[in-house]
């Protein structure tokens, strides 16, 4: 019984655990070689967000070699991101997906400490990949993780691998800027008609200044005592009215159906990954698999992590000459494109003025406009038309197109 025996793809695969012995932490990973040219194609580390959601949901729901159908069997994905790259899916922080521990990790910085160790050991064992370009990609709360993890990696000059860029999709990265855009997105200024009555929009606007002042206090102190109240107040005031409509927070065009995460397909993944034969083939050691662990979510919230200014690390990445792609499906509410476009425009870095004044250009795929793109040097913002929170789920061909352009070194896309 090997990972290949599951028939998710025919390429070479590895699964296993990173063990952190004295802290009893065990991180699960699953690696797929590129379908194209694994000796030369880049390596990608994919991270889902949550916080508390398994990266295997990204594998099966968005960009991996197969999805899981209603009959709980794999369906081949011809738009998989391992078409031209090898991809590692890592379940982190601990107690997410197949990862487990007797202890808790409570914030992004703590969660990131072990990712560097994982990469060092991975590239030590599989040294044939260590000189290939290595990128970190992820979405949603990975807008918190990726800047911090990337900074941690850059702080290790002795690293054994070729760290090349980061990609963040529909991320939560700069809450102080992004929380200004829930009201416009819900109230008809994001490209879709308003989904709220006028009085609800007015209520959102009237609570906005208190919310922003609380986030600002969190940015200043970065203390639990100010960051927790900011999360509670702002999430209730800015997301509450939208959630009460019953709409899907990940896609403004749809109602929320199929459990707490609004997609029926996620339930098929849970069923598949709880099968004994699947766990045996992968070596998975947890008794139960859940797409998202809400304990971890609440744990991060109580650590005040949600509202912290991790976008400051993006400035450091750019100043270290690490290319950064921010992309956003334009039908998402919770990490909407308006907020993402706004924070990249005000991010301080040496190229900020030129970036802010760069023209927004159409982004074409196969002769058809698929979105818009704004770029200066190594920093790019891409708006993807017709996609919700999980871009490769809604626009698989277009997502693979920009992904291949980016990892191929075309930072203007």
């Amino acid at each position, binding site marked *: 019984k090997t990972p290949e025996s599951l028939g998710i793809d025919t390429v070479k695969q590895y699964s296993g655990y990173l063990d952190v012995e004295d802290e009893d932490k065990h991180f699960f990973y699953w690696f797929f070689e590129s379908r194209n040219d694994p000796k030369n194609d880049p390596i990608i580390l994919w991270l889902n967000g949550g916080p508390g959601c398994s990266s295997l949901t990204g594998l099966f729901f968005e960009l991996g070699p197969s999805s899981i159908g209603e009959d709980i069997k794999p369906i081949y994905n011809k738009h998989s991101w391992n078409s031209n790259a090898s991809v590692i899916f890592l379940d982190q922080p601990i107690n997410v997906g197949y990862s*487990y521990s007797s202890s808790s990790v409570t914030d992004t910085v703590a969660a990131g400490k072990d990712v560097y160790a994982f990469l060092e050991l991975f590239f030590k064992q599989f040294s044939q990949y260590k000189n290939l370009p290595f990128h970190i990609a992820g979405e949603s709360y990975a807008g918190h993780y990726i800047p911090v993890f990337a900074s941690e990696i850059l702080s290790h000059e002795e690293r054994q691998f070729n760290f090349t860029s980061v990609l963040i999709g529909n991320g939560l990265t700069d809450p102080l800027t992004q929380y200004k855009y829930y009201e416009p997105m819900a109230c008809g200024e994001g490209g879709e008609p308003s989904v709220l009555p006028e009085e609800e929009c007015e209520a959102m606007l009237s609570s906005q200044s208190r919310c922003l002042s609380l986030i600002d206090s969190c940015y200043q102190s970065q203390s639990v005592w100010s960051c927790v109240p900011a999360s*509670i*107040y702002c999430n209730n005031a800015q997301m509450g009215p939208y959630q009460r409509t019953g709409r899907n927070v990940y896609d403004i065009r749809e109602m929320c159906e199929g459990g707490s995460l609004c997609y029926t397909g996620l339930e098929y993944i849970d069923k598949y990954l709880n099968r004994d034969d699947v766990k045996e083939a992968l070596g998975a050691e947890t008794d139960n698999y859940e797409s998202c662990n809400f304990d971890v979510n609440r744990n991060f919230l109580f650590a005040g992590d949600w509202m912290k200014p991790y976008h400051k690390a993006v400035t450091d990445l750019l100043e270290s000459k690490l290319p950064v792609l921010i992309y956003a499906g334009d039908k998402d509410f919770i990490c909407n494109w308006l907020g993402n476009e706004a924070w990249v425009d005000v991010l301080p870095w040496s190229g900020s003025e030129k970036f802010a004044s760069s023209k927004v250009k159409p982004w074409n795929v196969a002769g058809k406009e698929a979105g818009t793109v704004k770029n200066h040097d190594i920093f790019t913002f891409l708006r993807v038309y017709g996609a919700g929170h999980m871009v490769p789920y809604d626009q698989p061909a277009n997502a693979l197109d920009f992904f291949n352009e980016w990892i191929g070194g075309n930072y203007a896309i």
Partner: protein
Amino acid sequence: FSVQQSLFNENLLQKASEALNFPIENLSNDVKSLWSEMTLKFPNAVSNLQFKTNPKPHTEKINAWDFHVKDEKLPNHALRVK
């Protein structure tokens, strides 16, 4: 509004202070009043906050692995590979 909720919330700041090992006496009045305002306005959200993640039941598979990887620069870490 629930009486039980109110009792639980009364202890919340105390629980946070214990979990974070930060004496409640050292908190400013502004912080105390902000936390009680959040507790009153959003009791459900506050009661859902959690200090620790529960451990996950698991069964180690000692013989499932083809490689065990260690590095002297990372003495506390090890990689298992199937």
